[in-house]
């Protein structure tokens, strides 16, 4: 019995030490990892959406509290004006959440471009929502107030063939980005001027 106790105590101490060490490393690297993820995951998509902007939208970002969550907004400068913001939102896809960055023009609430950032859809099928330019191009120029739905659900977006489920995920992500944007617009306008 005492032997059992000793084994138990040793393993517990080991696990506790390791937990402490990992927590320390995690908190030390957390900020850098966040930046790296922004750079490698969102960076390329953001560049596409903000094509032709004169600043670095990755660096030019601000956060707004939205209830319990914090939303990050990226700013794009065009013709010297801070008119375009991009935000990320998520929709349920076939293999999990699909992250979509949506760029919105602050002057008329119209979409300037969207791009998929993270997803775990089937390669070659659902994953085409990220790679097929004609799919994401459909969102361009549409007002953020529109109800985004695929045609099969009575909407106006053509789904990627064979990937209705994933396309639906992208649509719901864009729709939810629109809702967040409209809800937070006064604060966005305030932040962007400062």
């Amino acid at each position, binding site marked *: 019995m005492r032997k059992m106790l000793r084994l138990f105590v040793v393993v517990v101490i080991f696990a506790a030490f390791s937990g402490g*060490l990992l927590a320390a*490393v995690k908190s030390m690297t957390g900020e850098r*990892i966040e930046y790296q993820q922004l750079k490698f995951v969102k960076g390329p998509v953001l560049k596409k959406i903000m094509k032709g902007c004169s600043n670095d939208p990755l660096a030019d970002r601000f956060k707004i509290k939205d209830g319990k969550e914090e939303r990050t907004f990226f700013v794009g400068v065009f013709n010297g004006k801070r008119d375009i913001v991009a935000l990320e939102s998520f929709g349920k896809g076939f293999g999990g959440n699909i992250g979509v960055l949506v760029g919105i023009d602050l002057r008329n609430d119209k979409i300037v471009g969207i791009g998929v950032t993270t997803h775990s859809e089937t390669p070659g099928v659902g994953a085409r929502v990220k790679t097929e330019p004609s799919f994401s191009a459909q969102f361009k120029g549409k007002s953020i107030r529109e109800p985004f739905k695929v045609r099969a659900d009575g909407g106006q977006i053509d789904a990627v063939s064979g990937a209705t489920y994933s396309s639906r995920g992208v649509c719901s992500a864009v729709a939810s980005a629109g809702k967040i944007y409209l809800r937070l617009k006064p604060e966005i306008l305030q932040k962007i001027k400062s």
Partner: protein
Amino acid sequence: MAKSAFQEFKKGLWAEIPPFRLVLGLCPTLAVTKSVDNGVGMGIALTFVLVCSNIVISLLRKVIPKEVRIACFIVVIASFVTVVELVMQAYAYSLFLQLGIFIPLIVVNCIVLGRAEAFASKNGVIASLADGLGIGIGFTLSLTALSIFREVLGEGTFNHVSVFGPSFQPFSFLVEAPGAFVALGLMLCIMNMLGKKK
């Protein structure tokens, strides 16, 4: 038994070089040697884990009860692997994306656990450090050699820089999964031939 630390270090570089002599840890060997940077990155990550886990396990070898030693070893190894994973994410994110699942899989790499069980749990700190360093560097060298072979012939590039010019028709079979087995087999064959002569 009283071998010098240098001897312990040296054996990992030739006499027991993994994965050619010590044929263990083949999963990452086969999977990540598609390009030179991946091979070297994997080797360095494994070396770090191996050295740290060898040191810690050798220090604690009198404290760890025999019955739960494997569990304790795994906790130690897994901690260092997670450290590597986090640091790599923070400072070498593209490498992290490339190596992906194979970084966490170092936990179950037989080389690391094997050295802990067979060496570090029976030897002193200095010897264990030398052993870990030797085996780790040996593994890095092997992966580098294998990935140079595969990338140069299979892709026509060295570390993503073209070597042979645009007219080269790459033997792309080598960078695919079956090519990994063939390349490893050839390497093992060469190593065995060299070994016999001595």
